[in-house]
């Protein structure tokens, strides 16, 4: 033993260092592998000179005078828009806060608190249902984002008729979030009263109304924004940049769709327990449309009837169309055919729950196709098909080269890209998780209609859309979804509705501006 401790023989040295060469082998292998990966990683975006992650410009909307708003229609959508503008009901803020404490992945509270102050006041609220109106008064008074009802004193005026709200001198602009059958009349009256307008989609219930509304908005020059918040989605703006650079080659077919499979997604909304003839001004509700006896079902689920809504075409095709229109400036199609039926929700509704529409753009040499089911949730994205590549456009963009592409022939032949794999992917904020829950919310989120990312931060797109409108009011410009864009959306949707309801092919005479 003593000998062993004293002498460290050559044999000892060999045994001590016997495994060192293994490290050398590993080092050699790693270097080889890194080299291989470097060769293999080919970034076509670099090759094409694309700067994918240039950040969108921030809209600043605080400067200038405080804009005084009126809210017309404070039901589901109106409530959502008020939240997006920074006016949530104290109970809602409290609920988000509690949910965040329970589940850290639920970021609604943090997102809401981080939302920019838009420098606005809500001065008036008009809703025909007392419960919604009273809730909205409290929301409109909660600019300080309190979580307790007792901390909020209502100081906002309720109007029982929107005409009185429009006559008020302390209101500069209105957000109209009523059912579709009221849009045109309210929009026209608002423009005539020189109030700036943010109005929900679909623009109008009928095609004639779209003409009338456009005429008055143009004559009065009020700042007009249609509520397609997808205009603010970073990936849609990026898609436009990429397509403008001809990344897809000649585009011949565009396919968009709607797939939802829950009652809420099919507009079967809950009927409020306090809804009755005393709490709802039914006569005013049906004023611009066909007469009908009081029906709480029709009041809350109005999207299911042609008297109030515009069906899948006006309600959900419009989202898809506007996203594509902002990217490709398609405009109004030359023709439309449509088909479908009430195949699942046999609940007395008039509008179809399965609906297809095909629009032709001969001048652009392309077809735009919409297909929808409210009874199946299969995920299908917006797909833009070009000769050289196909783009899948949602909150995330993916571009797949086409195997027969001319533009990418060299790269395809060299095996650098293949149609099996996206050659360009754009996904801002990919590491953030969302806390949205309901199926309908997930549907909208995946389609880039709930939130986007600005400089890595998750932001509500409706918030940005309202912000853009306010900025335009302050600088006297028209926003991204102005009356011309809105008109194109409305006519396109109405052409499909007419094609479906009259079971015929519908044409647009661009010169005479007529649907024939």
């Amino acid at each position, binding site marked *: 033993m003593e000998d*062993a401790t004293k002498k460290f023989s050559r044999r000892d040295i060999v045994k001590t260092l*016997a495994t060192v060469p293994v490290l050398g082998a*590993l080092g050699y292998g790693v270097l080889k592998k890194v080299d291989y990966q470097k060769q293999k990683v080919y970034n076509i975006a670099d090759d094409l000179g694309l700067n994918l992650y240039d950040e969108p410009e921030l809209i600043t909307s605080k400067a200038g005078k405080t804009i005084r708003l009126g809210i017309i229609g404070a039901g589901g959508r109106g409530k959502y828009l008020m939240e997006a503008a920074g006016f949530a009901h104290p109970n809602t803020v409290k609920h988000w806060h509690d949910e965040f404490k329970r589940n*850290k992945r639920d970021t609604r509270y943090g997102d809401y608190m981080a939302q920019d102050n838009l420098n606005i006041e809500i001065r008036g609220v008009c809703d025909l249902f007392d419960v919604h109106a009273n809730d909205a008064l409290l929301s409109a008074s909660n600019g300080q984002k309190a979580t307790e009802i007792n901390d909020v004193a209502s100081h906002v005026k309720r109007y029982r008729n929107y005409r009185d709200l429009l006559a008020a001198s302390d209101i500069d602009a209105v957000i109209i979030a009523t059912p579709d059958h009221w849009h045109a009349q309210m929009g026209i009256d608002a423009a005539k009263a020189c109030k700036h307008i943010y109005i929900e989609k679909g623009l109008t219930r009928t095609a004639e109304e779209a003409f009338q509304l456009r005429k008055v908005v143009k004559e009065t020059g009020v700042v007009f924004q249609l509520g397609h918040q997808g205009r603010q989605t970073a990936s849609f703006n990026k898609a436009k940049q990429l397509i403008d650079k001809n990344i897809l080659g000649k585009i011949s077919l565009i396919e968009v769709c709607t797939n939802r499979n829950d009652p809420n997604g099919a507009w079967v909304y809950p009927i409020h327990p306090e809804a009755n003839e005393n709490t709802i001004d039914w006569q005013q509700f049906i004023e611009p449309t066909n007469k009908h006896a009081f029906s709480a079902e029709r009041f809350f689920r109005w999207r299911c009837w042609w008297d109030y809504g515009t069906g899948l075409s006006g309600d959900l095709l419009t989202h898809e169309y506007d996203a594509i229109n902002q990217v490709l400036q398609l405009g109004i199609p030359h023709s439309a055919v449509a088909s479908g039926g009430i195949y699942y929700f046999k609940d007395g509704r008039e509008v179809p729950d399965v609906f297809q529409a095909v629009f032709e753009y001969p001048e652009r040499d392309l077809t735009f196709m919409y297909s929808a089911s409210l009874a199946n949730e299969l995920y299908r994205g917006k797909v833009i098909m070009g000769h050289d590549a196909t783009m899948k456009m949602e909150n995330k963009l993916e571009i797949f080269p086409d195997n027969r592409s001319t533009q990418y022939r060299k790269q395809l032949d060299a095996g650098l890209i293949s149609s099996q794999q996206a050659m360009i992917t754009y996904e801002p904020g990919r590491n953030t998780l969302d806390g949205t829950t309901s199926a309908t919310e997930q549907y909208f989120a995946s389609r880039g209609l709930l939130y986007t990312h600005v400089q890595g931060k998750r932001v509500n797109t409706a918030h940005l859309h309202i912000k853009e409108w306010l900025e335009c009011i302050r600088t006297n410009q028209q926003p991204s979804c102005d009356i011309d864009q809105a008109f194109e959306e409305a006519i396109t949707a109405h052409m499909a509705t007419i094609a479906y309801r009259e079971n015929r092919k519908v044409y647009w005479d661009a010169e005479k501006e007529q649907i024939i």
Partner: protein
Amino acid sequence: MKISHQLNASQLYALVLVRVLLGWYLLYEGLAKLLNPHWSSFGYLKSAQGIFSNTFHTLADNPQTLEIVNQLNIWGLMAIGCALILGIFGRFTSLAGVFLILLYYLAHPPLIHVNEVLMTNENTLWVDKNLIFIAILIVLYLFPTSRVIGIDRFICHKRP
């Protein structure tokens, strides 16, 4: 110290081979993460399941703790891998390896109700690759071959 007397030559070399191979595997795991600028333990922690899942989720939610976990993981893997190959501090290294891989095992235990398909292509029930690694490291702890073949031979010689 008596390990060379307990084992015959082929038994000893077989154990050294196991030690070196496991070391290689762990060292490369660490290196690959180090060389990949996009790698983060975020997804692994965030998708953790089982009784400790909340702890792992909390680590992922905080950017500071996430960065610490990332660095500890990368350098821990590389240090343990390197030490196993070279045979440095054999018993301590084996225990450190058991600890680290036990964390992997606990973050994604292959339980009956857990959907394991998301993370790996393995089909597992209670026993997975991590648990087997842990067992191997326990064997290596009980048979510290580094004192015969490895740097520990020199260290033991210096400090008998």
